[in-house]
């Protein structure tokens, strides 16, 4: 691993770790289901960037891009389903506050 690559990895890694922190904080602290999904999106974006970075560093950009393309397709379908759940949570509770979704417990 050349020093250049190592430095590049370092820079990207710092940003990726910060993105993970931001996404996790958003998921944990939001009182709105759409914001939770946005937090998830940020997490997934961090992972996507990591995969591309990994492909770049070890010289397998083709494989990494393939993986990311499939990943994006899955991501969007997950978001569609999650939006559907949000919609119905709103219809059931008249609110998209996730705190209303804590009746199953114990």
């Amino acid at each position, binding site marked *: 691993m050349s020093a250049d690559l190592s430095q590049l990895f370092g820079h990207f890694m710092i940003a990726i770790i910060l993105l993970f922190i931001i*996404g996790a904080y958003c*998921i944990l602290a939001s009182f709105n*289901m759409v914001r*939770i999904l946005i937090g*998830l999106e940020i*997490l*997934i974006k*961090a*992972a*996507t960037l*990591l*995969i591309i*970075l*990994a*492909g770049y*560093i*070890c*010289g*397998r950009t083709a*494989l*990494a891009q393939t*993986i990311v393309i*499939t*990943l994006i397709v*899955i991501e969007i*379908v*997950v978001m569609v*389903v*999650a939006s*559907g*759940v949000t919609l*119905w*949570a709103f*219809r*059931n*509770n008249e609110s998209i506050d*996730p705190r209303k*979704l*804590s*009746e*199953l*417990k*114990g």
Partner: protein
Amino acid sequence: MPSLFVLTPFLLLVVVNLPFKFLRKQIALWPAVGGMLVAQVVFSTFYPLNIGRGIADPFEQFFMFGLSLDSLSSIMLLIIGIVAFVSVLVASSMISEERQVFHFLNLILISVIGMNTTVLISDIFSLYVFVEITALAVFVLIAMEKGKFAIEGTFKYLILSAVASVFMLTAIAFFLMAVGSTSFAAIKDAFASNSSDAFLLKLGTGLFLCGLLIKCGVVPFHGWVPDAYSAAPASVSVLLAGVVTKVSGVYVLLRLFGTVFILNAALQNTLLLVGIISICFAAFASLTQTDFKRMLAYSSISQVGYIVLALGAATPLAFVGAVFHFFNHAIFKSLLFVNAASLEKRLGTTDMDKIGGMGSKMKVTSATSLIGLLSTAGIPPLSGFWSKLIIIIALFSAGRPVYAVIALLASALTLAYFLSLERKVFFGKVVASPAAETKASFGITFSEVLLAAITVAAGLGFAFILNTWLLPLKEIVH
């Protein structure tokens, strides 16, 4: 041969969705899906007996799927077939509205494709793709009735599952960086050959483990399990508890940590600790549950703990025990969820405070649930006992007596909570009998009897099962 397990349901899925009215008729749909699953059961049952292995696969040359069918996959295919079939049977007596039936069967097909592919796959990213497909289909299945609880359960499952995906994707990135490929063979070589970066491999292994543990639903990653299981419609909870979580979490764990990754001491200890904590924690949690399905969900967590525990012992015997327990658990947990479905259908509730003295009214349900409960608690000669015994022996011979003893004591706890359940629901006083009493349907009764028979037969003939289906596993474990 292996790609047939993927392409057949896929073809069926396509055919079902063709815009012809007659194809959507319920009368054609149920038998088609059921028949496909029965065929899967039959094929995977006879796989280890060397029948049908020689059949040439015309698709193999056309599609480069890179699927491989070995003894572990064949057991998984068998379980998927049985449980999905039972789930379809139960659904056939609970769902009648045409649109819902159509959606249900489509989603079941998708989840079966997802699971079948998951167990045949030999590439870590494709594995993630199909685990995600299964999960997606199940999200929609759980939320299908769009009730308050169903949406809530789906939401929690979805969020935690997405977090698990992030863990897994990160791990895949590290594997890609360390190995340069995502196939199992390359990763296995990387572990064995010492030519790859040990730190990256370790990082990837750890992160993937965390993701998988969320999917498995073991303590402390289990938050979604009781909610999703209890909120799902009866037939879906059978599928979810019996096989979806198990395949997308536990199977992957077994496959990767049993046959691909090489476990170092720290990983072994991690698995052992997580296993034993899940066993005890969930067993205690289920003691005071008042909802039948919630109690079953916690017991499910506890039983998955045994599998993880056995995996942590990292010996071939333990692995065999883990797979056997996997099989048994899938069968008897599905049985118990079918019992729950039966109660739900008849009484409209699974709250145990509102149910009582059903023993005399629902003879089949109470008898089969007793079999399921005793098997879960590990009472001989039912199947659950044997797998637990093998796990315990394996733990002892791996030099982990403390874990073995704790696991044993916890199974006493299991017995206690199940007996309290049994007493409340089936033997207790008849609590004001609800108005909505209907007769148990054929589908439910048949699946109860079928699963109970498998449990008893697997217990009595465990030696045969062990020799025929499970011993070949020794070859794929390292």
